[in-house]
């Protein structure tokens, strides 16, 4: 196991898009600032494709944060990548649906088209000099051989890391460990784990991923997110404490959560 793991907080992206969550621009800036202060390494700040207002907010977040890297989330769409340039992010994240289910029903494409589009998107971002990270959406239901095909293809674009997303939260810790361990065998890039809490296992899966060698883990404060939410920030920090350094103390994480409670309604506050 490594001696250090990075927290990627996605409260402002995956968290913010869940039902009943709505932050004002001022609140988003405050949330970014407290995350930056406490030592979160990467803040996923939003989705530029949502429009000019969103882009302006992300740009302000970028200006407000002094330590954390600001990442922006993109669909596998060329125009989305172009919108991202408006935000001057530190990392352009490109999310690639990788399960056949998602490719067929959501994208209405085939595997080859997905690979080609990814190449176009990655090329564009790299041409403009942006570091990229690649997200394998619905990876837990994808064919591993297909994931392996991406590694060769990504060689040219040198992604900073690869996100393995358990998009619908169906993994157990034992499976997570096994899948990340196997991914590590053929993935030359740092691995980031993104867990959902549908079976109440998000933080445990995050721990299992770290034990298997994941270098980055995704969280949201109070675990806010679609359905049963994401891996809870404070719980994750607590779980990693004493095991591996994530650069954030439990005391700091508690303080972050306490402040954050002001920005959400009771249903999440007491969850």
């Amino acid at each position: 196991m490594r001696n250090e793991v990075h927290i990627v907080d996605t409260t402002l992206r995956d968290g913010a898009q869940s039902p009943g969550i709505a932050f004002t621009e001022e609140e988003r800036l405050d949330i970014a600032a407290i995350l930056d202060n406490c030592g979160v390494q990467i803040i996923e700040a939003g989705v530029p494709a949502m429009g000019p207002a969103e882009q302006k907010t992300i740009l302000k977040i970028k200006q407000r944060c002094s330590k954390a890297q600001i990442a922006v989330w993109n669909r596998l769409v060329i125009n989305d990548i172009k919108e991202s340039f408006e935000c001057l992010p530190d990392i352009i994240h490109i999310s690639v649906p990788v399960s056949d289910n998602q490719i067929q029903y959501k994208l209405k494409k085939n595997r080859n088209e997905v690979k080609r589009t990814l190449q176009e998107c990655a090329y564009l971002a790299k041409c403009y000099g942006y570091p990229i990270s690649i997200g394998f959406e619905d990876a837990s239901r994808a064919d591993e051989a297909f994931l392996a095909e991406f590694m060769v293809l990504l060689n040219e674009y040198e992604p900073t890391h690869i996100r393995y997303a358990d998009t619908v939260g169906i993994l157990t810790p034992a499976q997570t460990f096994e899948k990340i361990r196997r991914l590590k065998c053929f993935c030359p890039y740092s691995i980031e784990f993104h867990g959902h809490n549908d079976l109440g296992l998000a933080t445990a899966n995050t721990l299992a991923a770290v034990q298997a060698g994941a270098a980055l883990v995704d969280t949201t404060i109070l675990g806010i997110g679609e359905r049963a939410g994401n891996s809870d920030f404070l719980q994750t920090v607590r779980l990693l404490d004493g095991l591996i350094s994530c650069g954030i103390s439990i005391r700091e994480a508690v303080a972050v959560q306490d402040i954050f409670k002001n920005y959400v309604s009771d249903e999440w506050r007491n969850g």
Partner: protein
Amino acid sequence: MQIYDCTLCFLPDNFKVELYVGLYKALCQLPVIVEYPLETEELLKKADSLYPNSKAIIVLPPQDTTAIPVFGETKEVLGRVLFPFDDLGIAGAIALRELEADGEVRTAFGGLHNTAATEEVLMALYVKGRLSPKTTDFTIMPKISTLWQELTGKKIPTHKAVIGGEIFAVESGIHVDGILKNPELYEPFTPEAVGMKRKIVVGSHSGHVSIREKLKEYKIYCSEGMIDGLLTYVQTEGRRLKRHLTDEEFLTALGEEYAKRSSYS
């Protein structure tokens, strides 16, 4: 592999008998052994015959504090019933690990008494194919939740895994679109499997597709102009209220939009 559910052992004393018996019966529908305090046996007997998958217990053993598990290593079975204490928020994972090694665990519905949540552990086994879909029926869970809330006086968080009332609500445009194309895209198991229904809610993240879908639900026709108006209203209100709109609120908005349009013409 065996799950002992000890929910009935941690209810406040002055319960309503009728609710208590109801919860007992409902829990017995799950593939677990339901443990109840010996002193309530007479009461259960009087109300109904006892279920074979239940047993009286006198005193529960203390909970096991959780050492952080190493997930890559093979797990030795404990040799007694593991009763995990949820101090790190991973009691469910610890229980599941014991079950995967063919061990025995004690859990409680809704994670009562700070232990592993029965419904989460069961659902994980179900999703993993360790429980046969033919013989497993979790549609009783909403009923258990209702009785559980009345008896404990606690509220199940709306986003609680497996039983939360809002876990199948979809609001954001991208997810509504995906769910309509194919529900499996964004759902780990069907809402029907746990006795619930999927619902599209409208709020700050809604897009045109959500509004159209909501109108279809009510079999109401609206012009594109009205849909635009409704969408703007719903998004603004959602931001202001910091939650999605209730069905009543949506219908009120619709009424106002109609009134506005007819006064123009």
